[in-house]
């Protein structure tokens, strides 16, 4: 009682009332938001039974993927070589030991070789035809032949199915800002090619199911190892950000004691300003959540020790995938039965020196995929319910510009995991000759498969039915996939 200020002025009384009102309003709004998301989750027809995780590896810069996966048969490879000129890869003389590029006097004297990989038909385990795989991807070859990995040919942003060269010349029904890094990344991640969106297709899924899919509401079902991104951002859900070294903590428990003391004091502070105080609570919560996550992941480190040996040798992708493997291993403790992860690998925008530069990043990707797959194999049933796929800004021009390649459109992507039909090249691999039906000039390939078709196939496996919910998540999907056909996804990626 003694602490109560008796001679309170009218001004300070009103001031206090204002603060109290704003706190209660803020609290009401937050509760309303939570109620909305719970309602959305309960009403949704998205199946969240069992455990499933989706991993997106974004290859920043635009992968020259027609050198990652090339034609192999003599006629097709000849056409490919003619178009690609100096950046064409040769067919391996000894398929078991494809030669890598050679540099003499600072210039590429030999581009390297591709090794044959035998693909099955999309829907049956029968021989289709061989393709060439980049020499820097020996592990990928192994994963492909063991039916753990497949490719999706010539994928890109499309507004309508069957976009033609004439449509391109007439600038008719084309995605927004083709050939521009940022906008094409946005189109891939939002899956809305004709307009700028503030949310991504995975973010829209999370908006509906986050509360149902993650029992620990403090840690989002969407986890990003590569910073804030559009893909996992919804109108209600934001990705939980982690560093490639693990959860982001302001101090290391084993580090300098004074740092910890100063930060802890700052977090324990009470501020007279309501917003300042709220901000401090948020910071404190964030530290607590990260500490909680960190403890859960640390408990799994021993079980995954040794799987990510390249992570300690500077493989940035391997470092990120290691954290994902730990998160999947700890998913029961985290109360998650649906998770998505976003990681990225840069270094694909090679307008210059594409041969050695691409070999380096593809090698990084190859090793990281192999290690991740091995780690998932050790995680039992949870590891068998993970699908990993690559995405990239765009493909590149087939014709080189000196020794580099420029911004293109469609490109080839990788999909990996136990749930997928492995050893396939899904979609239609285009004819790589000048003035083909898919050539938008300088070998920029008009996509034959849209990003929507890929995303719908993955979303369908993830539990999204092909009804209005699918349209809510992929607004442009009806251009490519009719409603109601629940059995056949646009691409038969899943077993």
């Amino acid at each position: 009682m003694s602490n109560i200020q008796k001679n309170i002025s009218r001004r300070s009384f009103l001031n206090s009332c204002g603060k109290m009102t704003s706190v209660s309003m803020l609290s009401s709004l937050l509760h309303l938001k939570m109620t909305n998301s719970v309602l959305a989750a309960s009403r949704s027809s998205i199946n969240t039974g069992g455990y499933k995780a989706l991993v997106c590896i974004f290859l920043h810069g635009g992968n020259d993927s027609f050198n990652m996966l090339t034609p192999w048969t003599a006629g097709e490879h000849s056409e490919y070589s003619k178009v690609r000129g100096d950046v064409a890869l040769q067919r391996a003389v000894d398929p078991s030991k494809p030669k890598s590029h050679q540099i003499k006097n600072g210039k590429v004297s030999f581009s390297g070789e591709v090794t044959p990989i035998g693909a099955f038909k999309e829907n049956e385990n029968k021989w289709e035809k061989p393709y060439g795989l980049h020499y820097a991807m020996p592990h990928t070859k192994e994963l492909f032949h063991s039916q753990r990995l497949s490719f999706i040919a010539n994928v890109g942003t499309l507004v309508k199915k069957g976009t033609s060269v004439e449509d391109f010349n007439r600038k008719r029904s084309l995605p927004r800002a083709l050939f521009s890094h940022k906008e094409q990344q946005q189109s891939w991640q939002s899956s809305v090619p004709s307009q700028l969106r503030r949310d991504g297709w995975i973010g829209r899924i999370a908006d509906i199911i986050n509360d149902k899919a993650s029992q620990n509401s403090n840690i989002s079902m969407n986890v990003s190892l590569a910073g804030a991104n559009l893909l996992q951002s919804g109108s209600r859900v934001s990705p939980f950000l982690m560093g490639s070294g693990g959860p982001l903590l302001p101090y290391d428990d084993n580090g300098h004691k004074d740092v910890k003391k100063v930060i802890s004091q700052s977090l324990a502070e009470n501020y007279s300003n309501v917003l300042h105080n709220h901000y401090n609570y948020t910071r404190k919560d964030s530290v607590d959540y990260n500490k909680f996550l960190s403890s859960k992941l640390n408990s799994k480190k021993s079980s995954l020790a040794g799987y990510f040996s390249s992570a300690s040798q500077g493989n940035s992708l391997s470092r990120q995938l290691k954290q994902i493997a730990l998160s999947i291993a700890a998913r029961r403790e985290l109360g998650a039965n649906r998770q998505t992860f976003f990681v990225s690998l840069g270094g694909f925008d090679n307008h210059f020196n594409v041969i050695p530069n691409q070999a380096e990043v593809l090698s990084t990707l190859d090793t990281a995929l192999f290690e991740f797959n091995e780690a998932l194999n050790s995680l039992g049933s949870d590891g068998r319910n993970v699908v990993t796929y690559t995405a990239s800004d765009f493909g590149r021009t087939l014709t080189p510009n000196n020794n580099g390649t420029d911004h293109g459109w469609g490109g080839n992507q990788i999909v990996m995991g136990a749930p997928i039909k492995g050893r396939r090249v899904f979609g239609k691999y285009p004819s790589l000759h000048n003035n083909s039906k898919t050539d938008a000039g300088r070998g920029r390939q008009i996509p034959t498969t849209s990003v929507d078709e890929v995303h719908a196939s993955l979303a369908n496996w993830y539990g999204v039915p092909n009804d209005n919910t699918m349209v809510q998540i992929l607004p442009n999907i009806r251009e490519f996939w009719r409603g109601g056909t629940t059995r056949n996804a646009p691409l038969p990626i899943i077993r």
Partner: protein
Amino acid sequence: MRAEYYIHKHSLVTVILVLIWLSILWPQNDPVATVKAQNTDVYNRTQTHNKKYQDTLSKHLPKSPKAFSSSKQKSEKRLDLIEVGSPRLQPFQQSTAFLINDPKQLSKAAETFKESNLTESEYLTSLKEILNDYLVLAKDEGYPTGLNVEITNALLGDNPHKIALISESNPKINFDGELVDSWDTPYFFHSHSLTQMDIRSAGPDQTMFTKDDVVLKHPSTEQATYSQ
């Protein structure tokens, strides 16, 4: 009593009839005159604008009677020419298109860009100014994207607004319809985003990505930077 009522009733009917007659025969206001009277200034400005617009159009219509027909149908067909177009990588034929603006009037940078005694950095600055003019006109669409010839075509008028920012007779455009640097090498345009674009000249050695390249990078800061 009856007579009074009779007179009163008839006078009322007469008044109503007179009012109806007046409302029919009253002179109607001329809507144009009303607009003029109410807002003469707006009216005059609209007229001036329309005249200017017609003058600009007439300047850009083909002068040859064979090439241009005054019939509405053919005129509309000409408007479609720009959309039908030739393959995007073909140089854009400005003379066959129906464009709105006179590039000379539109951009001082376009005039500067034609001069022969500029340094490469000055050329790049002028080119960037022209592209910035495009950005202002195109608004949300941002800078044109794609290969050199596509960006050049967009500046020549192959754009949704049918606006030309440079003339096809500009000596900086080569036979393939590409904008070239001081050493006749096509510029390299790098689209980071719709509002961020780098322009690279290969420099005297005419090879891209070597030490003598002249690059106008779109900076995160306002100040443009050159590297040489």
